């Protein structure tokens, strides 16, 4: 009896698709963290699905009217896994460690830290940062124990990791699995979870399963209890399984097709616009995604206020208009099914990265482009080679996706400083750069930031630099014979608040 109880308190969760490949649980230096990191480290604030911010290790915060400082009150009685106490000094020790790392931009606007008292800390800013709470709620802002962080050096997050989270790192086999054990002392959950104490599950194994169908079959056969990132094609059958429950969360990214504006024929804005009009987002969602998720008509996820642009700028399917535009641009229907201009046929390169989701999507895109007389030749690259192709400017169209629920993604993909990669559109434009600077650096507060980014977004849209296609949902499926999972997932992603509320079925 005892052993069966002990066994029953274990759960196996599988990562698939976008959560794969974390190389370390060091939140400061790592560029790729998965959901397990959110269980080891707690953040000052949490963001909910409605984009609102909730206190976690911070009980309250205050932004100075000029935006030049942020003061946080901290929760009392919080301890790290190694027993040291969490207090204002922990914050002061932590932030400077970002200097020189890939994640430094998250605290790029922070000038210095003041320890006001044991439980009060003040961030002194070098410029206003309306995005600060978003940054603080990022997984990368999970707070490590400073003593242990210094002691372990490069091994932090690999051999051991110390945070304040509801679970402790037991073992990390890179690329394979991560084993977490419960932090019995935990009593400082955010208000996103009902359970404010220690987790109900003793031990969680996170497995990385690269092949989506394998992950799916594992769930179906009971090999795993919960699957993060269920491929949409499988949702239908999973829903039909009596012991499997599926939860859909709003997505945090977009699948889109960047257009290389420097490569003929796409140097002609009419051709670019026509390309956008050829893509039938609704049909794609209905067919290969079985109606799950949403069509994307601009670059940002629909939950962001910056996504609510002038409707005329949204990109939607209009075959006739597309054909008309191409005719105007001088590309006329030839003998075959491919348009011609000056003896050149409208044949373009369509790149994508391997991984089954994009290749499927690309093939549909290819078929839809054929309908306007554009012949697209697909090449499927691995992630490294494709970047070389971009940088060498050998591409024309590509199908890709991003996962980022903040409007500053526009800067990342369209800033003239990052031509080639990640600015795959190869777009450099004075007006665009000006709008970018304003949005990134001159926004004093959140409303201003929204307005600035919306303007930038609209300008980007008007230039037809890409074709938005699809906003996927985040799909979670679990074995309801094994686990109880809250019906509604709080937060933007699957994180500690959900795990705290999960229980094993007796």
């Amino acid at each position: 009896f005892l052993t069966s109880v002990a066994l029953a308190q274990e759960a196996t969760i599988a990562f698939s698709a976008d959560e794969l490949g974390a190389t370390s649980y060091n939140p400061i230096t790592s560029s790729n963290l998965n959901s397990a990191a959110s269980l080891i480290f707690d953040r000052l604030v949490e963001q909910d699905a409605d984009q609102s911010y909730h206190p976690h290790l911070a009980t309250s915060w205050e932004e100075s009217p000029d935006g030049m400082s942020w003061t946080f009150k901290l929760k009392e009685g919080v301890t790290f896994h190694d027993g040291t106490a969490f207090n204002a000094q922990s914050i002061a020790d932590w932030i400077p460690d970002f200097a020189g790392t890939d994640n430094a931009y998250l605290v790029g606007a922070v000038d210095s830290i003041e320890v006001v008292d044991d439980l009060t800390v003040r961030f002194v800013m070098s410029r206003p940062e309306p995005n600060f709470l978003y940054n603080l709620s990022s997984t990368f802002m999970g707070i490590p124990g400073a003593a242990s962080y210094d002691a372990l050096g490069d091994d932090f997050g690999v051999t051991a990791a110390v945070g304040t989270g509801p679970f402790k790192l037991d073992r990390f086999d890179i690329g394979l699995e991560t084993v977490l054990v419960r932090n019995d002392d935990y009593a400082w959950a955010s208000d996103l979870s009902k359970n404010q104490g220690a987790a109900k599950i003793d031990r969680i194994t996170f497995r990385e399963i690269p092949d989506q169908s394998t992950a799916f079959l594992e769930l179906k056969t009971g090999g795993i209890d919960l699957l993060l990132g269920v491929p949409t094609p499988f949702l239908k059958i999973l829903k039909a399984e009596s012991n499997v429950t599926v939860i859909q969360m709003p997505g945090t990214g977009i699948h889109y097709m960047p257009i290389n504006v420097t490569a003929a024929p796409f140097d002609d804005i009419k051709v670019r616009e026509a390309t956008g009009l050829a893509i039938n987002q609704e049909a794609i969602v209905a067919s290969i995604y079985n109606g799950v998720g949403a069509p994307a008509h601009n670059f940002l996820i629909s939950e962001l206020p910056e996504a609510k642009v002038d409707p005329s700028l949204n990109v939607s399917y209009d075959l006739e208009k597309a054909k008309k535009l191409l005719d105007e641009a001088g590309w006329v229907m030839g003998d075959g099914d491919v348009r011609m201009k000056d003896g050149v046929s409208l044949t373009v390169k369509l790149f994508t990265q391997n991984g089954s989701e994009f290749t499927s999507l690309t093939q549909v895109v290819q078929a839809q482009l054929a309908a306007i007389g554009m012949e697209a030749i697909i090449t499927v690259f691995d992630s490294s080679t494709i970047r070389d192709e971009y940088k060498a400017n050998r591409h024309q169209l590509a199908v890709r996706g991003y996962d980022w629920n903040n409007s500053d993604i526009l800067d990342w993909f369209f800033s003239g400083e990052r031509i080639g990669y990640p600015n795959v559109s190869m777009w450099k434009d004075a007006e665009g750069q000006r709008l970018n600077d304003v949005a990134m650096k001159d926004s004093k507060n959140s409303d201003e930031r929204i307005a600035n980014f919306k303007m930038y977004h609209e300008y980007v849209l008007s230039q037809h630099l890409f074709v938005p296609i699809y906003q996927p949902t985040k799909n979670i499926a679990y074995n309801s014979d094994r686990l109880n999972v809250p019906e509604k997932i709080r937060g933007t992603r699957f994180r500690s608040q959900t795990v705290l509320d999960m229980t094993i079925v007796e």
Partner: protein
Amino acid sequence: MLLRYIFFRVLMLIPVSISISVVIFMIVHLLPGDPIDNLIRIGSSPDDRALLVTKYGLDQPLFVQYFRWLGAMFQGDFGEAIVLRRPVADLISQNLPYSLTLGAMAFAFSSIVGIILGTISATTRSALMEQFVRGFILLGSTVPGFWLALLMILFFAVQLQMFPVSGAKGWDSLVLPVLTIGFGGVALVARVTRVALMDARREDFVTLLHAKGLSSGTILFRHLMPHAMLPVVTILALRIGWILGGAVTVEFVFGRPGLGSLLIRALGQRDYPVVQGCLLMLALAVMLGTLIGDVAQAAMDPRIREAKT
């Protein structure tokens, strides 16, 4: 005699290893793509990039990089993974056990079953049995491994739920991968055993063995088998490298860790040190395989032992 042979045979490995290391180093640097790109994230500047390039020594001339690498290697240091950010040696030692377990099981399975089947098909007087084994051999050596793996998953893991779909936990997760690799291996070993036995049976000395009054069984086990095992051992020894590296497909389908998958992943991320490390390990395994094969041959065959020293 044998010891002397082994000694010289091992000495011979030195020049071979050095040339292999050059080849591997060159291959890796022929790869397009840049590992640093995998490290860069939103917001980093060209300076950050340059810093990383210097940190990993990628700005040095090729031969400098080679000698550094080789020098470190002699101290047992395989370098630091650029993308995976940890000693390559750690990565290898983490993955190798999986490859070794799978390899050893598949190896044992295919040798034992293969030799038994091969012997049966070469000696049986039942036409039915012979046809059955031949059919099995044919299937085993022609059906694509990944397809077989998929079918086995569909049947044994999903339908019957006898074994897990994927993963590398517990003995039961080994069964399907071992069967998949083993199926091809059994066919190969059985075929070689069969042909070798039939050839051995045609040798002149067998007539004399019969003439001495030995029974067919004694002749088979005491004299023919040792002969038939000569080519079988060679093939099996060569398979050591094959099983370690060639199991990528099976590792991929069954979501198992292993040297092959590590290599493929590192290849995709252009993680030079890891690719180099893995290739070197595989080359080592291949060399070890040929070494074992040669030594086993020498141990079994006095002619070889003599001719080569």
